[in-house]
């Protein structure tokens, strides 16, 4: 499974949006439940999915799906 597909699956679980609606360009304005509380919930599911933990700076960096993919790539996560 591609990295983006795994992130899309996390978004589906966290925000109840169809996984196929998630692209690299997705930003909080595109996802109604992606506010600060939703973000923390999504990060927690993301940590479980990838078996890792994120630093505060990394969590703050996640301002779009592309940013999330970049953070995951920096942590050595691969598809």
């Amino acid at each position: 499974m591609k990295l983006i597909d795994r992130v899309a699956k996390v978004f589906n679980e966290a925000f109840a949006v169809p996984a196929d609606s998630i692209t690299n360009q997705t930003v909080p304005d595109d996802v109604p439940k992606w506010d600060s509380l939703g973000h923390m919930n999504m990060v927690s599911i993301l940590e479980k999915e990838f078996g890792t933990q994120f630093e505060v700076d990394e969590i703050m960096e996640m301002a779009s799906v592309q940013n999330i993919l970049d953070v995951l790539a920096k942590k050595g996560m691969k598809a």
Partner: protein
Amino acid sequence: MRPESIYGIVTGAASGIGLATCKMLLEAGTPKVGMLDCQQEKLLAVWEELAATYSPDRVSQFYMDVRDPEIVARTIEQFEEWAGCLNLAVNCAGVLLDGAVTSVSSRGVKRYSLEQWETTLDTNLTGAFLVAREAIAAMLRSRAPDNSIDDCRGLIVFISSISRHGRAGQAAYSASKGALVSLAATLSQELASYHVRSVAIAPGLVDTPMAAQIPGWYTKDMLNRVAIKRMGRPDEIAHAVRFCIENEFFNGRVIEINGGAF
């Protein structure tokens, strides 16, 4: 004070609230506006635009880092030489370096760096203090040509923030913006006998390059707490600066302008 009798400087003039304030002053007929900023290329670009619209006789630009006491003093002298006097200083220059003071993760305890703290405080607070100090000295040694002795001799405006009440992840920024309100109140008492006023404006979330730094999911949360559910525009904050100029009974206090944020 009338905008037509203002000889004013604006820090952080290259963008956001600073730039909107310069435009407001020029539109209102202010004869001399000094645009001060440390982002030289950006400053030059916006100055060229304003000078072409309003005349280079009315608007000038000065490269200045508010953190350097000597450069601040020299720049204000240069403005005086160009404009003839100084009776308004609007302190908009600021930085936002987000981060929790101390946080814990699997890799241990992480601390907000002293460097980030000092950069924020040096720019937002000490910088505003240095500009105010030199601007007040200039106000006391000069008087606008059409001001009588009874008129207000000058005005210092500090751009604070809704974050002055405290906001998670913005300790340095919040502390600096809170301190500006205290500084405005103190100066209003020290300077009343010289007919110089000192005030603060505390905007909420405003659509500026600084706000663009904040992640969208955080911005969304902030907007949910705003009654009218939108960001402010820089010109709406500049409008509050105009109120401060024109209303001579307003002194030592802070205007909150945030769309009803609770």
